[in-house]
C-alpha cells in the first residue's frame, strides 16, 4: 500500500555541513517472500559512503541495487543490521537523503516549477521571494529556465532528469542518491547528462551515491566503485578511481581506466554467469512475464 511508505517517521534534520555527510551500512540484510520461500536479496552487506565522494555501486542486473537504495532512502526497513547517516540511524524517508529515481518521478500534474518548489513549500522552510529566486537559479543552472511552466510529460527525457536534479538540489540534502538515473535515455543524451552531472558534482562535492549497471558510466563518474555480487548482494570489490578531476571523456581511454574496466568486468561477468546458470525454468517464466509489463 502506498500509505505504508510514508507512515514511517519523517524527519528533516539538517547537518552543519550539508553535502559532507557519511553513510555507513552495517551488516544489512533484507529478504522478501514468505518464511518458507524467502529469497535473500541483500546479506550482511557493509559499505561506507565517504563524505564528499561520489560512490558508484555497480552490479549485475537484479542483484539488489534498488533494494539497497530503498533501504538507505528509508522506503523500506532492513531485516537486520543498521544504516547510519552521520552516526544516527535512518528511520524513514526524509529530505536529508534525496533520491533521483530510475524512471522519472516528477509529479506529472505539477509544472516543472511547481515540482521544484514542492518540497520547500510543503515544509515551509523556504518561502516567497527567497524560494522563487532559488528555484529560478536552479532552473537556469539545469538549463530549464524557459520550460518552467511546462508539465513533465512535455519535456524530453534528458530535461526530465535535469528537472529532477533541480528538485533534489533545492532541498540541500546531505546525500544524493541516484538510482540508475540515466537509464532509458538514448546514448547521446546519456553522455550529455553524465557530463552535466559531473560538472554539478565537481562544483560542490556533495556526498553522492550513484547506482548503475554500466561500467563505463561508473568509471567516468566515480571516486570509488563498489562492485556487488549476484543475489544476495555482497561487496565483491572496492575500486578506487584516481582519474583526475575535472574529468572528461578522453580519460576513459586512458591506461588506468582500461585497467579498472578489465578488473570490474571480470567480476561482473563472473557474477552475471552465476545468475545465468542459476536461472531455473520458473525464473525465466517470471522474467518473461515481467518483460511484458
Amino acid at each position, binding site marked *: *500500500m*502506498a*500509505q*505504508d*511508505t*510514508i*507512515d*514511517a517517521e*519523517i524527519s*528533516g534534520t539538517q547537518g552543519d555541513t550539508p553535502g559532507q555527510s557519511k553513510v555507513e551500512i552495517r551488516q544489512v540484510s533484507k529478504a522478501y517472500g514468505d518464511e518458507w520461500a524467502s529469497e535473500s536479496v541483500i546479506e550482511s552487506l557493509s559499505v561506507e559512503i565517504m563524505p564528499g565522494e561520489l560512490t558508484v555501486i555497480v552490479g549485475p542486473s537484479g542483484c539488489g541495487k534498488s533494494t539497497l537504495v530503498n533501504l538507505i*532512502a*528509508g*522506503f523500506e526497513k532492513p531485516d537486520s543490521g543498521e544504516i547510519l547517516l552521520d552516526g544516527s540511524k535512518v528511520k*524513514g*524517508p*526524509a*529530505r536529508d*537523503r*534525496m*533520491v533521483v*529515481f530510475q*524512471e522519472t*518521478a*516528477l*509529479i*506529472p*500534474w*505539477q*509544472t516543472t516549477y511547481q515540482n521544484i518548489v*514542492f*518540497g520547500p513549500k*510543503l*515544509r515551509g522552510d523556504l518561502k516567497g521571494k527567497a524560494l522563487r529566486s532559488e528555484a529560478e537559479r536552479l532552473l537556469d543552472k539545469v538549463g530549464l529556465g524557459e520550460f518552467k511552466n511546462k*508539465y513533465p*510529460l*512535455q519535456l524530453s527525457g534528458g530535461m526530465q532528469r535535469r528537472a529532477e536534479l533541480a*528538485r533534489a538540489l533545492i*532541498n540541500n540534502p546531505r546525500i544524493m542518491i541516484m538510482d540508475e538515473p540515466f537509464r532509458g535515455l538514448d546514448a547521446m543524451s546519456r553522455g550529455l547528462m553524465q557530463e552535466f552531472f559531473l560538472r554539478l558534482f565537481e562544483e560542490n562535492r556533495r556526498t553522492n551515491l550513484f547506482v548503475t549497471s554500466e561500467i563505463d558510466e561508473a568509471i567516468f563518474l566515480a571516486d570509488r566503485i563498489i562492485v556487488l555480487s549476484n543475489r544476495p548482494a555482497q561487496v565483491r570489490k572496492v575500486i578506487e578511481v584516481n582519474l583526475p578531476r575535472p574529468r572528461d571523456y578522453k580519460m576513459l581511454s586512458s591506461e588506468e581506466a582500461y585497467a579498472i574496466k578489465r578488473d570490474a568486468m571480470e567480476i561482473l561477468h563472473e557474477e552475471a554467469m552465476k545468475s545465468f546458470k542459476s536461472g531455473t525454468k520458473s525464473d525465466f517464466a517470471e522474467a518473461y512475464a515481467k518483460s511484458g509489463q
Partner: protein
Amino acid sequence: MSRSIEAPTGLSMFVYRFKKSLQTPDPYLTIFGVGLWLFVWWLLCEGLRVDRFDKIPGPIAVFTELFARTPFQGISIFTPEYYEHILVSCRRIAIAFAIATGVGVPLGLFMGWSKRIRDYAFPILETLRPIPILAWVPLSILMFPGFEAPVIFLATLASLFVTTLNTMLGVDSIDEAYFRAAGCLGSSNWDVFKHVVVPGALPYIFTGLQISIGVAWFSLVAAEMVSGDLGLGYLIVDSYMNNVTVPMVIGMITLGFVGWITSVMVRALGNWLMQWHVKALALQGR
C-alpha cells in the same frame, strides 16, 4: 519556433476550428453516418413498411410531430409538457449525480489510500454492486415516500458504485514513485493526500464520472418507468400504455440528446481541471 502568428480568441477561434474541421473527413463521415441511420429507420418503418415495424413511427412522422405547433399526440417542442418532462428528469439526475459524486469520490479516495478503510468498505460494495438496479425498485418504494425520493435513490445508487470503484482504481493506478518522491521531500500524510492522491486519481475519477452519469440516466429512466409521475422515462412508458407511439420515440431521442450533453459537460469539466493530462495526450496526437 516562430511566434509571429497570434492565436485567435473567442469566436474567431471557433470559426477557425470549424473551417479547419471542414478540411478533414470527420464532419462528412458524421453526416453520412447519421443520414444512413435515418434512412434505414425510414426504410423499415415508412418506406417498405416491414411487418411489425409498420406500427413504429418513422422519422418523418416523428419529426413533423416534434416540430408541430399543435401536435396530434400531445408532445412537441411547442408544448410546455415536453420541457416539464426534461426538466424533472434533469433535476433528478442533478441531485442523484451530486450525491453520488459527493459520497463516491471521497469514499473511493479513502478506500484507495488506506488499506484499513478498504478492508471495511470493499466487501460490502462488491456484494451490493452486482445487484441490478431494477431489483432495488421494490425496496426503494418501501423505504422512501412519494415519487421523487425512490427514483433519485435508485439513480444515486447506480452511479455511486461506478464512481467509488473508479476512484479507488484511480488511486491504485498512481505510480509508487510519486509517493516515494513526496516522502523524500518531507510531506505529511495529509500533504500526500492533497498533492498526490487526489490529482493523481483525477483521470480515473472523470472516466468514472462519465460512465456514472450515463448509468444514472438509465437507472433513472428504469425507475421512472416503474414509479413516477413525470420525467422522460415516464413519458416513454406512459405513451406506450396510452398507445401513442410518437411521443414515446420523441422521449427516447430526447433522452439520448440530453444524456449526451450531460456527459460532454462532465468531460469538459475534467479537461479543464486536468490540463497536464490534456497536454500529455495532445503530445501523443490525441
